[in-house]
């Protein structure tokens, strides 16, 4: 592995919300083509890590380097423009826009109509449901459809790195499986993925490697298999 393959490198990252220290110096990296998962209890700092990468929250110390570019002084919309797509916790769809408008907005700054059309085609072939509902207000979609839309928007941006924050939350079991299936397809088509999940079993099944976050620090790391075999992980995150 050469360092070229490292898409994202996070070193000694510290983030605080006022007095609450959410991240106390974490380091990890993501290589091209990988699916890496962050697992950990509630409030461990998983979402905070993703938000720091997208520059939605300021970080006090440490560095985040994406494809060789330090993100310290980059603003969130520029991060997106650089090729990081973020599916935020709670989906963050624009309820007052239609499905189509939600997708269209994600092409902000893109000029090439052919490229945009290709992106639409890809999203609609992955999620035929969204094509059916394209003129519906996104706020009236069901939870699973909203999650599809959130992932669909990230695909419209067409990033090289996709950050996903608990895509399976609140979804019916069928949909959970569908979403994970789509993630596998996206990854196979060449997108690197950093996945945050509560559903550790499924996440580890999908991912190549994983990190375990505990109260703002990295407690464990390894390949998915290693983690799944680890008794501590089994006990705390896989439900015995």
């Amino acid at each position, binding site marked *: 592995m050469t360092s070229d393959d490292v898409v994202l490198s996070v070193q000694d990252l510290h983030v605080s919300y006022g007095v*609450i220290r959410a991240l106390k110096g974490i380091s990890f990296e993501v290589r091209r083509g990988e699916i890496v998962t962050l*697992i*950990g*209890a*509630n*409030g461990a700092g998983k979402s905070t890590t993703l938000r720091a990468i997208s520059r939605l929250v300021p970080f006090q110390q440490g560095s985040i380097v994406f494809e060789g570019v330090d993100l310290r002084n980059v603003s969130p919309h520029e991060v997106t423009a650089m090729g990081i797509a973020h599916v935020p916790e709670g989906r963050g769809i624009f309820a007052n826009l239609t499905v189509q408008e939600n997708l269209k907005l994600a092409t902000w700054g893109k000029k090439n109509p052919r490229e945009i059309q290709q992106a639409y085609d890809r999203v609609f072939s992955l999620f035929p449901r969204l094509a059916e509902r394209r003129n519906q207000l996104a706020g*009236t*979609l*069901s*939870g*699973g*459809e909203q999650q599809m839309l959130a992932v669909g928007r990230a695909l419209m941006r067409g990033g090289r790195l996709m950050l996903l924050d*608990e895509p399976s*939350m*609140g*979804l*019916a*079991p*069928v*949909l959970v*499986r569908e979403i994970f299936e789509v993630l596998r397809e996206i990854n196979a088509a060449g997108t690197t993925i950093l996945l945050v999940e*509560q*559903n*550790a*079993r499924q996440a580890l099944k999908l991912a190549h490697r994983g990190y375990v976050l505990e109260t703002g620090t990295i407690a464990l790391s390894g390949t998915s298999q290693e983690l799944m075999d680890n008794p501590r992980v089994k*006990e*705390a*995150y*896989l*439900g*015995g």
Partner: protein
Amino acid sequence: MPLLRIRGLTHFFGGLRAVHDFNLDQEPGELIGIIGPNGAGKTTVFNLITGVYRPTEGEIFFNGHNLVGKRPDQIVSLGIARTFQTIRLFKNLSVLDNVRIAHFARTRYEVPAAMFRMPNYLREEAEVRERALELLDLMGLADQAEWVASSLPYGLQRRLEIARALACEPRLLLLDEPAAGMNPGEIAELMELIRWIRQQFDLTIILIEHQMRVVMGICERIKVLDFGETIAEGTPAEIQSNPRVIEAYLGEEAI
């Protein structure tokens, strides 16, 4: 006689039929689960029971009282409390205050008594304070009593929401996806907690959940909704093997 009796409950949002002909008879002490795909109308059923929405059609009887047309606070005082799918604590208030608010309907003193600190006010407030702290203590939240609710970790916020509902002294407790966003370890704890409060407070419970472990683990009876219709009803074992449920909800590879 059932504690809760629902007949022909139907609700429309504009042209959208969110719930259709929902029926339920729940005996005291029973724990019933409601499952179904996203948007099936589960939360809407809770909203109809608790008076957030007025049903388009149907009857809801609780303990002999007709609930249709009553205000939420009146319904709560009849003995129904609930939690929310997305946490709805009073974020900027202390944990203790969150619980004490639930004593509102049982407050007997009037505003002037409060403003002039009359003896009945002082007595009752002292009582409420102690009762609330006792409950927090039982729920393992006593140490955080004076924290601002939003500063609690997520798991404790869920727990506080349950504590706040319990402070309403309900006979029927409605839990809307209490395990959402929890990892398997936390889910196990939650199941333990639900069993314990059920017995401790002598509760009848309806539970909405997507985590099959929880539903199958603690519910005695399960109703499955899809597009507002009840598509199946039965014991966990029956539900798990019901082909319609597998198709609409659990997926092919279901256990």
